[in-house]
């Protein structure tokens, strides 16, 4: 966890620099490539003990961060969420192939129908933001899950805060 967090900070720092310089996607892509050695050095390893290829889905999930979180009954993106989505957009443009699914989720403190609609709003908020960062709208599919698929199962805010999420799921990536 601390390792992937370190990796996330490194990526975020680099991309913020890149954005502020108004660089194009190619430059961003090169920037990410150059990070490979740094992550290897930081020890972002896959299950086989080898460094995660920065073009892999595992890298997207664990290092870039595949999810953002929301406040109770809200779908507005927090500053933390938009920072993650900036990185997602860069990575997706460089590495993702095919369709990208954005799953919306809600915690259990709501009725089923409402939570499906609320989780759709959350997924749509992510989709809309990624589109403003250049990810083609046509590649993004929304799937609202409501409260059907919690990642944490306790009935307190500690779990609810992790369940109120939108997860970007990459169908396939260059680095598999």
């Amino acid at each position, binding site marked *: 966890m601390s390792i992937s967090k370190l990796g996330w900070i490194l990526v975020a720092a680099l991309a913020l620099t890149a954005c502020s310089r108004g660089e194009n996607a190619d430059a961003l892509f090169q920037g990410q490539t150059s990070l490979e050695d740094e992550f290897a050095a930081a020890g972002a390893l896959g299950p086989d003990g080898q460094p995660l290829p920065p073009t892999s889905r595992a890298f997207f999930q664990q290092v870039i961060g595949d999810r953002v979180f929301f406040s109770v009954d809200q779908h507005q993106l927090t500053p933390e969420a938009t920072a993650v989505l900036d990185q997602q957009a860069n990575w997706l443009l460089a590495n993702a192939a095919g369709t990208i699914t954005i799953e919306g989720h809600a915690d259990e403190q709501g*009725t089923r129908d*409402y939570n*499906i609609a609320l989780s759709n709003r959350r997924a749509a908020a992510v989709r*809309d933001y990624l589109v403003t960062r250049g990810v083609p709208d046509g590649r993004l599919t929304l799937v609202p899950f409501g409260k059907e698929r919690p990642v944490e199962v306790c*009935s307190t805010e500690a779990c609810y805060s992790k369940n109120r999420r939108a997860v970007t799921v990459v169908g396939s990536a260059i680095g598999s």
Partner: protein
Amino acid sequence: MKQVWSVLAAIFLVLGAGPLAAQSPLRITITEGTREPVAFAAPAFVAESARAATIAADLTDVVTANLTGSGLFRDIPATAHIGRITSFDAPVRFSDWSLLDAQLLITGSATTTADGQLVVKFRLWDVFAQAELGAGQQFVGPSSSWRRMAHRIADIAYERLTGEPGYFNSRIAFVSETGAKGQRRKRLAVMDQDGANLSYLTGDETLLLAPRWSPDNRKILYTSYASGQPEVVELDLATRATRPLTALGQVAFAPRYSPDGRQVVLSANEGSNTDIYLVDPATGARRRLTTSPAIETAPSFSPDGRQIVFESDRSGTQQLYVMPATGGAAARISSGPGRYGTPVWSPRGDRIAFTKINEGRFHIGVMRTDGSDERLLTGSFLEEAPSWAPNGRVLTFFRETQGAEGAPQIWSVDISGRNLRPLPTPAFASDPAWSGLIQ
């Protein structure tokens, strides 16, 4: 099943024997205050053939369980009985039953004919008036239909004592759930309202939610994730065939049939917005009924088909609104503290059931259709999705316990808040949907 019922319907004989009962004093008035259940005795139905012995005993048990389960009747157990009913047509010794303070006596018989048909007769007696309560009746059908006959007998007893239609001859569709809380596997199931005759209508390969009966009890709508996205699917109970109601790729959920079965009202998403649409299941043609940028979902028709109640957060929180079935201006009807969702119009037309979330607790409640006379019937950590019994007197819903081991179970409660009880299911169960009365 259909053939069974045409046979039953065709041979619905009124037994000629016995004097016509005058207006009987034995009557249950379903009122709001506390009420003593009517004490009744249902001695074992007389088996008039050896082959009918088991069925006669089972019939008695099911009739008794239905009536006591309603909360309106109290069974005087056989161990307390003084008299025995050994012949269906012998005169009743009322003193045997009045000594027990039994107000209602149910007598019956079962026999099988040479061609294997089951013949069931019954009579209802007002013990203190020493008179028959309405005319006796007879059912004829295949032996396999004995449970339906028992439910009909209980429904007739309920009707004669309350003056309201019964609800025992009905089914409940629901979502059967297994597996850990984070990876629940769900499949569609259906059972009689008392939990008998359970069968599964789908596998559990893909997530599915919230079954809804067609008015003729022949089809069920539900929300399926089989295509990857939530879609509304129509299942034909006779053939088990399913077909998507909405175009592939269109997110839709929360469907309900119109009272005539010709239209489906549901929620569909367009971008970030959830609105209510009317869909023609035959053609797929759809019409949008709401246009606000709010979440609008959980629509339910009034029984006359002229209005739709739904929930919207256009005011900032989930609240209940009523609009014409053709769309147009909606009037808010919920006004108390907290959030209101999942409104369902009573089949009697007089009330709307809902889920209320207030101060961290969930409640099932009812209100008049203008929002007045709100009453909360139950409350717990998490409960939702009320569904009306066909007579509009009882609700089923599901309640989920909290924590990592939390799981859903189906419950029922009558609209005065009494007789709250769990319905037995072999696995976890949610999203109950009560069918109409089986004819």
